[in-house]
C-alpha cells in the first residue's frame, strides 16, 4: 500500500471527474462535446481502478485500465464514424436533430 496518498483523495477526484463528464453529456447538445464528456467519464472510471490497484498494491487495477483503454478506443472509432454519418445526414451536429426515428 502507498501510505502517502489516502485512497479517499483518489476516489473523490475520480468521482468529481465522472460527475463533470456526466453533466457534460446531460447538458450539451453538440455531439462532439457529448463524445468528449464520455471520454472524461471513462477516464475517471479508469482512474478509480488505478487508485484501487495502487491501494492494494496489485497490478489488477492497471490491467482493468488497459481494458478500459481498449473499450474507449473502439467506442471513439465507431462514435466518430457515426458522428460523420450524422453530419452527412443532418448538416449539423445537434443531437436534437435526430428526432425523426419513430419506433
Amino acid at each position, binding site marked *: 500500500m502507498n501510505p*502517502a496518498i489516502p485512497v479517499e483523495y483518489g476516489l473523490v477526484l475520480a468521482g468529481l471527474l465522472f460527475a463533470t463528464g456526466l453533466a457534460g453529456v446531460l447538458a450539451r447538445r453538440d455531439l462532439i462535446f457529448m463524445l468528449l464528456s464520455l471520454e472524461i467519464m471513462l*477516464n475517471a472510471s479508469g482512474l478509480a481502478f488505478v487508485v484501487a490497484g495502487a491501494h492494494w498494491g496489485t497490478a489488477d487495477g492497471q490491467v482493468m485500465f488497459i481494458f478500459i483503454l481498449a473499450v474507449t478506443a473502439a467506442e471513439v472509432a465507431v462514435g466518430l464514424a457515426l458522428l*460523420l454519418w450524422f453530419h452527412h445526414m443532418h448538416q449539423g451536429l445537434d443531437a436534437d436533430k435526430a428526432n425523426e426515428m419513430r419506433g
Partner: protein
Amino acid sequence: MNMLFIITGAVALVSAVMTVTRSNAIHALLYMVVSLLSVGMIFYILGAPFAAALEVIVYAGAIMVLFVFVIMMLNINRSRSEEKQWIRPSAWTGPVILTLTLATELVYALWPGTNGAFPILVISPVEVGISLFGPYLLGVELASMLLLAGLVGAYHLAHHIGPARDREGDRL
C-alpha cells in the same frame, strides 16, 4: 507528494470543467489534452508508470488526434479570418498556464534530492504484463475481438458515407 497530488487533481478537474463548458470544439480539445496529461501525472504519482505512459500515448496522443481529424473534416469550409480569430491569446493562455503547472510539478518530481516525490510502491510494467497474459488472458482476447469489431464497424460506417462524397467529387 500529497501536495503534488492535490495540485494535479485540481488541474485535471479545472481542465475537465473547461472542456465541458467551451463553445469552440478545438478549445475544448486543448483543455481535454491537459486534463488527460494531468491524469497521467496522477497515475505516475500513484506508482503506476505503465498506465501513465499509456494514458499519454493512447489517450492524449491517438484518441485526441482522432477528434482533431474529425473536427478538421467537418470545418473544411471555414474561412481564414475566422481561424486567425481562433488563435488569439485568450484561447491558449488557459491551457498554457495549466500545462506550465504540470511542467513545474514534473521538474520538481525529477529534481535530485526530492526523493519524497516518488511513490514508495511502484507497480512495474513487468507485473502488469505477467498479470495481463496470465490470469487475464481471456480478457485480452475479448479486448482484441472488441477492437476488431470497432475497426470493422468504423470501416462499414465510413464506407457508406464515401459514395455520396465521390459523386459530389465527380460533378466537380
